[in-house]
Structure formats: C-alpha cells, structure tokens
C-alpha cells in the first residue's frame, strides 16, 4: 500500500519534471531586440504622440505642395494680407501668395536640408570617432586633440563664415555650412562608444576566435552603437533645422522667391505688428518639428538603452 503510493508519487514527480523539461526546451515566442525596443517605445505615450506629430509634419511638407493647386510663387496684390480663412488656411503674405502651400514648400526645403546635414554630420562623426576609438594609442590621441582644437569653433558664426566663403546660397552650401562645425560631438560620442565596447568580453572573444580587425569593427562594434546613433539622429536634426532657420532669418538663407521656414519667419518679422499670423505660422512649424524630434529621441533612448529598463 505504502510502496504503491510512493511509486505513484515518484512517477508523478518524473512526469512533472519531463513536462518542465519540454517547456524549457520549447521555443518561446520569438522576440528580438528590435521588437522589445518597439514595445518599450510604444508604451511611452509622449514619444508616440511625438512620432505621430513628426510623421504628420513630414507628410504635410511633402504632400501639400504636390496636391495643393495654389501656386506658391504667383503674385496677386489684390489678395495681399488676407487673414486665415477656408480658401487660405494660413492666410496670404504681402504679395498675395498662399501661406499654406508656402509653409509646406518652405518646410520641405528646411526638412531636406535638415536631413541631408544630419546624415553628413552622422557620417563624418561616425567615421572619425570609430577610427579614433578603434585605433587607440597615439592616433586616437592626435585625432582627439585636433577635435579639441576644433571644439573652440562657435557653431553659428562658423556656419555664417562658410556661407560667405561660398558666396552662393543653395541647398548644398547650406548643408556644408551646417555640417562643418557640428559633427564634433557625434565623433566624440562615437569614440566613447567604441572604446567602451572594445572592453567587452565578446570583443575579446572575437579576437580569441581569430576574427580580423574589420570583422570586429563592422560586426561586433558598429552594430552595438546603432541604438545610440539612432537617438543621436533625432537630437542632431532639431539643431540643424534651427540653425538653418537662424541663418535664413539673418538673410543668409535660401534666396527668394524660394522659401524655407527661416525666410518665411523673416518675411513675417517685417510686418508682425499688423499681421502677426505670418510669423506665427513658420515659428510654430519649427517648434513642432523640433519638439517632436526631441520627444522621439527621448523615447528612443529609453527604448534602446537596456540600462533604463525599469519599466520593462
């Protein structure tokens, strides 16, 4: 009697153990780092709202000039200074041009310059920082001291000087002007990342397994900096857009009749007392883009940095 129950008990123990074993062996629902990150990002309400705002703004600047029948350049003085209405949601300027389509078109210029300059900043910063951090030793030292010297350059005056040296203001000179003195931080962050990652055991393990330097760099180091770099894109973008607006506001921007948010704001500045909406619209557009980019960066940082996983 007792032995029977004992056997039964032991059999049940084995059954549970087996079930456990199968459970442990079964492939759990597959999750990747990316999916985890998306999940964490989607739980951050501010970041999600900002992402929607960002997409709406990008859609606005790229789609509106394409579908809106109003010409952004046709001058019609009979329609000058019409306040916001159904026909002209953002009103018209002193030449009777529709501000809705001009804001969108100007935004397109601003956003395009912003993205191009951000990409340029990232590329230069990544290459410089990665070389410096990966090489180490005297090369690292020399490159960082050079960067220290460059750090002394003030961003906007240097951009102004660059534009002046080129003599012409177009898309590419603006990109160069905005890039030339703003890639330093990216390079430093990149170098710091590479140096930290270099100490990781899996990098040592890769060396111990006979991996060549390029494999270690491109396979083990760079992919691990991706999270930080994505965040940095959204931190750089607002700065560049603001810089472009600033240059344009000073009269160093895209030449009329073309427009960017900066030149639109400058147009509005001359008549802000009588027709305040003309300056308010581009200013709000700039603020919208910058704030949404910052909130996205914030959300991305929380989502991609495994150290801030407290709400996971």
């Amino acid at each position: 009697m007792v032995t029977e129950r004992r056997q039964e008990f032991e059999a049940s123990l084995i059954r549970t153990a087996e079930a456990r074993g199968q459970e442990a062996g079964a492939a759990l629902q597959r999750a990747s780092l990316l999916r985890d990150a998306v999940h964490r990002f989607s739980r951050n309400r501010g970041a999600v709202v900002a992402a929607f705002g960002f997409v709406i703004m990008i859609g606005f600047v790229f789609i509106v000039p394409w579908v809106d029948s109003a010409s952004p350049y046709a001058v019609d003085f009979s329609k000058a200074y019409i306040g916001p209405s159904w026909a002209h949601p953002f009103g018209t300027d002193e030449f009777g041009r529709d501000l809705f389509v001009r804001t969108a078109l100007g935004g397109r210029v601003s956003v395009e310059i912003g993205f191009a300059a951000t990409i340029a900043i990232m590329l230069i910063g990544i290459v410089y920082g990665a070389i410096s951090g990966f090489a180490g030793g005297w090369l690292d030292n020399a490159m960082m001291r050079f960067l220290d010297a460059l750090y002394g350059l003030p961003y906007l005056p240097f951009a102004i000087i660059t534009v002046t040296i080129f003599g012409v203001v177009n898309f590419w000179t603006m990109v160069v002007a905005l890039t030339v003195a703003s890639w330093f931080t990216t390079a430093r962050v990149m170098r710091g990342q590479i140096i930290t990652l270099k100490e990781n055991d899996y990098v040592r393990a890769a060396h111990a397994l006979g991996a060549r330097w390029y494999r270690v760099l491109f396979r083990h180091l760079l992919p691990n900096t991706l999270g930080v770099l994505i965040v940095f894109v959204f931190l750089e973008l607002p700065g560049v857009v603001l810089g472009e607006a600033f240059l344009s506001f000073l009269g160093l921007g895209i030449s009329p009749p073309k427009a960017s948010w900066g030149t639109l704001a400058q147009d509005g500045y001359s008549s802000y007392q009588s027709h305040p909406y003309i300056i308010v619209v581009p200013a709000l557009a700039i603020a919208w883009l910058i704030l949404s980019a910052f909130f996205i960066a914030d959300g991305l940082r929380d989502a991609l940095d495994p150290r801030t996983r407290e709400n996971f």
Partner: protein
Amino acid sequence: MALLEVEDLHTFFKTREGEVHAVDGVSFTLDRGMTLGIVGESGCGKSVTALSIMGLVPPPGRVVSGSVVFNGRSLVDRKQRELEDIRGRDIGMIFQDPMTSLNPTLTIGTQITETLRRHLNMSRDAARKRAVELLEEVHIPNAAGRLDDYPHRYSGGMRQRVMIAIALACNPKLLIADEPTTALDVTVQAGVLDLLQELRIEHEMAMIMITHDMGVVAETADDIIVMYAGQVVEHAKTLDLYDSPEHPYTEALLAALPQLEGEDVRHGRLTSIPGRPPDLIAPPPACRFAPRCPYAGQDDCAVVPPELREIRPGHWVRSAHPASERMGHPVGAR
C-alpha cells in the same frame, strides 16, 4: 613531442609607475589530451599567461622574452595575421563571464557559424547544420529551434555552453578555459565542468583550466601549476599536490578550503592567508611569498631567491622550505 611548450615566459606591462611583472619566468609543457590546471589568487598572472600564449596581451602589455611553442611552431613573434588563423581553429578559448561574452546584437546561430565560416570556409547551410550539432553536443534542448534566438534569451549556464560550443567549433587541439565557472552558481558549475570533461575526452583535446577554485581543478586536471606573483611556485600531478603539498602557499590555499567532514574539520571561522599579494612593480627581492610565509626568517630565504627545483620525480617547488624538508613547526604556528 609535447603539444604546448612554454619556456621562461616574461610578460610585462609598462605603466607610469613602472613595469608590472605580470608573468615572470613561467615554464611548463602540456601533452596532447592532457589537462593542466593553473591556480592562484587574483592578479597572480594566470590569465596573462593564457593571453600571452594566444598573443592577445592587451597594450601596454608585451611578451618581453621566453618562447611559446605550439604543435612544433613558435607563437611568439608571429605576425597577427598568422595568429588569427590559429586562434579559434587550433586553440579555443572560453572566458569568465558568459553574460558578456556573447554579442547581444547577433543571434546565437550567427555567432557559432561565424567561426566555422571564418576558419573552415563552410557554406552557410553546412555551417548552420554544424551549429545545431554543436548546440546538441553541449546539451542545449531544442537546439534547432533556438539557433535564431538572441543571447538575452539564454541563461548564464546556457550561454557558457554556447561559448563552449563556439570554442569547440573547429575541433581545436587545445582549449584554454579562463575561469569558466566563476560567474556561474554552484549547480550550474558542476554541469559545465562535467560537460567540459566529457567534450575534452570526446574531442581528444588538451585543456588549460585557469581558476582560483582548488575544487574545480581537483576534479578536472591531470597536472596542476600553482602560481604566485607571476611565478610558478609549485607544479605537480594533481593527486600528489593534494596529498602532499610542498610549498607553504599551496598548503595555505588547501587549508583555506572549507572542510565538510573528516577528522580535521574546523568549526567557526575559515582560515585565510594573512597579508596580501606583493606589488608586481617591485616584488620582494628573493622569495616572493616570504612576507606572508610562516616559515620565513628561519634561514636566508628572504635574501637568496629560491629556484624551482624537482623535490621528487614530477613534483617541482620553488621554496627554501618545502613541507617534506621542514623540521618541526613554524615560528608562531597555526
């Protein structure tokens, strides 16, 4: 001919305060299929010895002199490119912390196949097949299904098994395990050690087991080297070393092990070795253990550096007063 011959190896680190003599004249040989245990406390040069063999000493460290002959060919003064071909193919290595030894952005499968494709020029499919076999060999359940998982879905013990699988991927002749179980908890440790032993026999590998845990080497090693302050202080067969330790340091290490049963079981506090390891920039001039040695002061051992000598066949010791030559009890005996 021995598989690995290390002869009078010196590895120094240049620092602002001076040269750190991390490895100072280490010699040993390792035959095919044998296991060598290297024990000693933190900073005694165990890991640097291993890294010197691999040619992976991080700057500002440098192998200053000595020779490392692996499989009949010298590894010192070899070009990095040639060493890269040997690493991972002929010599595998396992690191201490499995939680950080795998790249979090690559799947387990990618990280195993990487080595196979690098050294054996396998096709993608063949490498994947081999990877599944390897995972099964290290007893990962449902290996095929878990190949595309990222490391964060593996526990510490499983990750160490994956590291072992990677190290074994190319059938190396020598496996260097640098504290392979230190970061794991005790039950998992036993499993990993059993696995290592099983695979070592199966693959007919030689192994260097680096650890500070006297219990770990007792089970796995054929020979044991005890290192202290960059030098080999005792080198003997495992059983011989445990039965009759000669060097006062080895004796102290063994005495520090907690005893669970037997006549000499102690109650209360565990014994420890008084003092701390010496400064390796300016080590004690003669015997490096002299400042902590209970037998020092009886003779001139703090003035004349003791040589590593064969006290009986196969048992080497570097001390002026090994246990079998000692008379009476030390001054201030424990």
